[in-house]
């Protein structure tokens, strides 16, 4: 997620989009929650510079994949909630399968078939 690796930009961007969509499957969430969920479920691997999440959220909203509303956070602060847009659930499946193919392909090239099949873990 580091912005320094510009050459990885496109792929990382897609991956980030996919992860955001994945976190929104469980329900509406605001930016901080999404960041925390990604951080925690990745066992703190994907942490730091969580601000770069926000342009991605706006991008997804522009594409119509998520929509948003202003509401109150758990701590009763004003927060902007995101939810998967209706009819866009299949986008996640599509993104996920594309990502799996990509990982498998990279894994094949790197000769790590087992991990490729198994995902990131």
């Amino acid at each position, binding site marked *: 997620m580091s912005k320094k690796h510009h050459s990885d930009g496109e792929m990382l961007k897609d991956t980030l989009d996919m992860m955001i969509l994945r976190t929104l499957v469980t329900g509406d969430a605001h930016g901080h929650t999404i960041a925390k969920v990604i951080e925690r479920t990745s066992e703190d691997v994907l*942490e730091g510079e969580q*601000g*770069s999440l926000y*342009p991605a959220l706006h991008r997804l909203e522009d594409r119509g994949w998520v929509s948003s509303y202003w509401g109150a956070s758990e701590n009763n602060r004003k927060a*902007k909630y995101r939810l998967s847009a209706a009819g866009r659930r299949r986008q996640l499946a599509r993104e996920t399968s594309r990502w799996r193919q990509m990982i498998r392909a990279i894994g094949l090239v790197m000769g790590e078939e087992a991990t490729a099949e198994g995902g990131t873990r």
Partner: protein
Amino acid sequence: MSWLRFFLRSQADAELQEEIDAYLAEETAENIARGVKPEEARRRARIMLGNSRSVRETLWRQNTVFLVDALGRDLKYAIRTLARSPGFSLIAVTVMALCIGATTSLFTVVRSVLLRPLPFHDPSHLVMLFEHRRDPRSNQEGFNYNPVSPADYFDWRAQTHGFEDMAAWRWSQFNLTGERGELPELVIACGGSRNLFPLLGVQAAIGRTFTESEDRPDGNAVMLTWNLFERRFGGDPSIVGRQIHLDAKPFTVVGVLPKWFTYPDATLQLWVPYAAGLPPVLLGSHDRHFSHVVARLRPDVSLASAMSQVGAVQYRLHLQYLNAPVAEDVASKNINDDLARDVKKPLLILMCAVACMLLIGCLNVANLLVARGAARQKEVAVRGALGAQRLTLMRAQLTESLLICLAGGGGGVLLSLAATRWLSSAWKDLPNAEGIRVDGAVLGFACALVFMAALLAGLLPAISSTGKAAFAALQASARTTSGNLSRAALRKTLLTVEIAVTVVLLIGAGLLLRSFVRLRGADVGCVTNNVLTLDLNLPAQKYGSPQKANAFNESLLEKLRAMPGIRAVALGSNLPGEGFGSDDDFTIKEHPPLKPGEEIPDALARWADPGYFGALQIPLLSGRFFTSDDRLDRARKVVVSSLFARQYFPGENPVGRTILVLDQNNANYEIIGVVGDTPWQVGQPIRPIMYFPILGGGSESGQSLAIRTDSDPLAISVPVQKQIATLDPELPVSNVLTMQQAIGDSLGNARFSAALVLGFAVLSLLLASVGLYGVLSYLMSQRTTELGVRMALGAQRDQLLRLILFDGMRPAIIGLAIGLAASAGITQLIRSMLYDTRPLDPAVYIAVIFTVLMVATLACMIPAWRASRLDPMHALRAE
């Protein structure tokens, strides 16, 4: 979608800021909950977030349409730079507004008059047909497109199949008398054949067009134009079916033409059937040329093959009537060109003149921009060094010229709205004058013009100021001038072109002006000072017999001659310089008969009263004038003009000879006198004239009065009209003018184009001199240090003056030389518009050379003088 985002990006940014704040608050609260101190908690939250500014920038870029953004920035810069030098901007915008406005106006007129098809059904298949003589001498006299005689037209129509149909129309005029005591009025009318309106695809707005049975000599149907319908009959549709009186004869109104229908021109008031009022003899004649034939080509036939059919018919007719003026061939003309024949050439010349002016305007703005480019050289170099691409720099420059041209274009279009209205009302001969207006196509043209001008004016400076050399400015010290030399050379080149184009314009204008002055001063062969002219028409119904016409004419002349302030009165069918009138062929009794193929003698026919020549002071060369005894059956006498005598009686005395005039009567006339020549139209070659006594029973073609007065002739016009009204209150009087006005009217066209071209030329000269001054001032400011050094080394002031003067005069002189050479070729194109003036008229060339040199010297003098006044210490310290 992305556009919306682009314009809402500030809003998105604000929301993001809010979201970031919310994140920080949440994260800080979480950290505090974990037991971290508030200060530390906030710091960790910020670290977790990362660089919030870069996050915002990412989103901002994500939302930006780059091209638009760059354009907007360029625009902002351009507006700022232009606003910083309002003087320059104002001059540049004014120049462009003038040039674009003038070009747009001219284009509007050209489009309506020459380019826009007439609003008829499928106008591309319509052509005008004319009788055509093959020999070059007749063509010089304008017989290559001669109107058609009625019988020729009938034969063409009956015997050829290349055209869907042919229709004919002819000019006419009537006294329209009031039904309820309205003033009588002389109305211009046309006789149109029954099929003319269906052929053109025109339907009556009210009522119907003519029928077959009405298109006869005794036909008495009439159609009103919308103009007459509104003006005289109050737009009351019940007029259709009622009667009106033309020349005291009743005519039934069968229809009203639509408002847009102003063919053949807008002065036309009503239509009668083609054959109505024409004697059957005339309808059967092959040698009376007065009809205009419109034909619609069949879609499956080429014009050439259709014309060859008509040509064959005409050639047979020619052989059949060898001794009559029946042309051997036919020719066709585009219907638009036929309408615009008098104005086409002047219009095209004006269009060229105005295009030249536009070119000069663009060059001038380019020149100004180059100068500014020089002043901003450092800025451009710095921007380039900081990584701006050349294209970006050029785009910035082009935006500036585009902005100037856009503002100028906006002003120009407003200007052209006014100018076009003025043009179409001031230019009398323009056909379709009502149809001239600014519309979408014209605005499109103006837009194209704006972008072209922007490119023309901006590209050169943009290229020159952003080239590799531009970056040398960073290295250059204040004292080096080498970097500027190429730019100065560019400006001098622009200037040379500007001056060359100006010279061409000036010479064209000078020639037209000189021709106009010659035309004005042309000898009319008679007195024109203090002469009142007016036209009146004796309707055949009321003055049908020669006795009645003579009685009216003689009592009118007697009454007028008795009026105080009147010196003499001439009554005739036509006055000198007021048009072609009619002509007739004749043979000379005493000469051997014509050989086959020999040209039949032809002369203009005029009718005159005994006092005509004396009153107009046309000199008697031999024989005698008419007397009041040359009347009725003793009127078979003719007075001929000097050219008539020279052309047809070379080396002999025509007086006492007899001519057989080939008109309807085919009668013998005895030549009793020879008088001086008068032109039928000023500026046209004179033609032989024969005068018949008007007391023989009136003229064939209307009557004109010329009244010579002691003082201002117009002062007497009302008493004269009252005098006429006492004799016949139903008789309308028209064209009440002084003789000078009447002749001047025919010069209107020449005066107009000369004045306009001169106006454009003077403006161009002004632009060019401003350009010259600007370039020289700039050069001088660039060379201040150099001049200071020269002075310090002992150069005299007059040497410096010469140096700078010579520097400025060189492009002027080179431009002058190029312009003169170009004019020598280009002015050949306007040869046909020049009267008694050669395209290489030395006076005009000398005047232009003198003027250009004068103006150029003046423009150079100021900077040169300033250079010679430089304080050397000050100059050396500059910068």
